[in-house]
């Protein structure tokens, strides 16, 4: 019985593989699934990229499950337990208010993810639209849009973010807006460069000769081709965004106490760095690991998605 089951299972797996890798797909879904599967195969060939994906998956899982896995409340002080070293009760020790650092780091992943996702949602589409419209239209529209981009690009990210937060008031939402506003210009540049190489290609001319309007051409024909390089760039930028968010938190302009933001945690532990090193170091390690994860993932994605690096 058990012997019979094994080859049968093998067969279904083989069947699925064949269904995915067939050269004659019978439906749109199958064609798309097959394409994704081939991309996945080439992605998994890069071991470091898989590690990066693993780190990011872990980050997402931690953020979702934080209330279930965190042993303590992240924000409730317990002054009798302050600055405890690592022990069985507090795996990663406690901070100056006696809060469990492990719990705070686990909850902090939510804030990190929140920042990363919101910045990506705001900055990537903005850059994509500005870049493709500029590249597609050319002429005056192009000049105006790209000069605006240049102006934003000329500001140092953290300084402009500081100015924004100073104007809007500290807080994590304002930090996100500030970071998003300063991080879209590179995406606009990439999208514009890609669009210019595509603008006069035969398949775009063909679509125009079928009567496709400007919006249709940009949305359905040009953006899908710019998307992969922008996704790669966004992923590689994530590390920088996390660092900027942490930097703002460290300066007291990002997430406000008692929120367990990693940068703010480092700021809080700064005074005890020599005697109670874990208070500042452990959130720092968390930032380091997540940034590294995004960088590894971005490198892997580049191999798969970037048309110029040979991926299909």
């Amino acid at each position, binding site marked *: 019985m058990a012997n019979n089951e094994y080859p049968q299972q093998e067969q279904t797996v083989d069947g699925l593989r064949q269904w995915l890798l067939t050269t004659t797909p019978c439906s*749109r879904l199958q*064609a798309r699934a097959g394409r994704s599967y081939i991309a996945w195969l080439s992605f998994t060939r890069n071991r470091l990229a898989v590690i990066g994906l693993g780190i990011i998956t872990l980050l997402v899982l931690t953020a979702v499950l934080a209330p279930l896995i965190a042993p303590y409340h992240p924000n409730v002080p317990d002054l009798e337990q302050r600055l405890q070293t690592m022990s069985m009760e507090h795996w990663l020790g406690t901070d100056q208010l006696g809060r469990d650092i492990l719990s705070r780091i686990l909850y902090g992943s939510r804030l990190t993810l929140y920042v990363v996702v919101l910045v990506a949602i705001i900055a990537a589409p903005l850059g994509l639209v500005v870049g493709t419209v500029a590249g597609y239209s050319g002429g005056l529209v192009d000049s105006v849009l790209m000069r605006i981009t240049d102006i934003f690009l000329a500001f140092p990210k953290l300084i402009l973010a500081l100015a924004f937060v100073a104007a809007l008031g500290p807080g994590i939402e304002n930090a996100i807006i500030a970071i998003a506003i300063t991080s879209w210009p590179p995406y606009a540049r990439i999208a514009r460069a890609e669009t210019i190489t595509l603008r006069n290609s*035969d398949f775009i001319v*063909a679509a125009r*000769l079928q*009567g496709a309007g400007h919006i249709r051409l940009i949305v359905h024909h040009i953006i899908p*081709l710019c998307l992969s390089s922008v996704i790669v760039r966004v992923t590689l930028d994530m590390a920088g965004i996390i660092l900027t968010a942490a930097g703002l938190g460290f300066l007291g302009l990002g997430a406000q106490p008692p929120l367990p933001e990693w940068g703010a945690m480092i700021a809080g532990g700064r005074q005890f760095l020599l005697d109670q090193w874990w208070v500042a170091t452990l959130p720092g390690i968390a930032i380091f690991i997540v940034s590294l994860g995004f960088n590894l993932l971005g490198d892997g994605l580049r191999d798969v998605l970037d048309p110029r690096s040979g991926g299909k």
Partner: protein
Amino acid sequence: MAQQDVMIDVQGLGVSFGHGSARVDAVRDVSFQVARGCSYGLVGESGSGKSTVLKALCGLYPLQGGSIAIDGRACIGRRNLDFYRQVQMVFQDPYGSLHPRHTVDRVLREPITIHKLERAESRIREMLVDVGLGLDFRFRYSHQLSGGQRQRVAIARALILKPKILLLDEPTSALDVSVQAEMLNLLHRLREKYDLTYILVSHDLAVVAHMCDRLGVMVNGRMVETLSDVSLLNGQATHPYTRQLINACHGYDRKMIDGFVRYE
């Protein structure tokens, strides 16, 4: 040629690029007429302006002078959807004319969506069979197709709107010889089936002689001679450039090539 039978009427067409001293006259004073259901060949060497004539017909380049009339209606400025439903184009390079991220199905569905036509499913199926691809190819991406198959998809895309006029910009020159013949036969068959009017641009006199009823010879943006396929085959070309072109088709001969003259 009776006046009502003229499908394409081009008079004194001029196209130029750039301004001032950088101005290049790509097409100068080109006139020709194509009767309904006929196919017209434009022959000439690279840079003689034959593809530019096609693109000007489609409204991709602004006219410097002259007029274009399709089926008795003058075409001025931006073309509308009705125009595109009547006139379609097939490009030279099958590797560049299909969107790299679209399946064949998507490529063929796009014009149907734009023109809000009904019966998308049956139109796509019918067209795939018509161009000799079959339904197996429907959900493939362009990188999974050979050059000839891609060109068939491009023809299907052009014909799915049921146009009256098909502009062919060297449709076979990027394909290898065996596929070229298949493609020409396919185009011939489709012309009869859909009652199409062709303008075929080529530098290959043999292809033009096989496909077209009349042809125009272009040199440096001017049309130097028009003649029928019969007079081409009988060697009745009068302009020395045309004769040179015909001689060049007979194969490479050092002495003959040395005797060639450049026409400026």
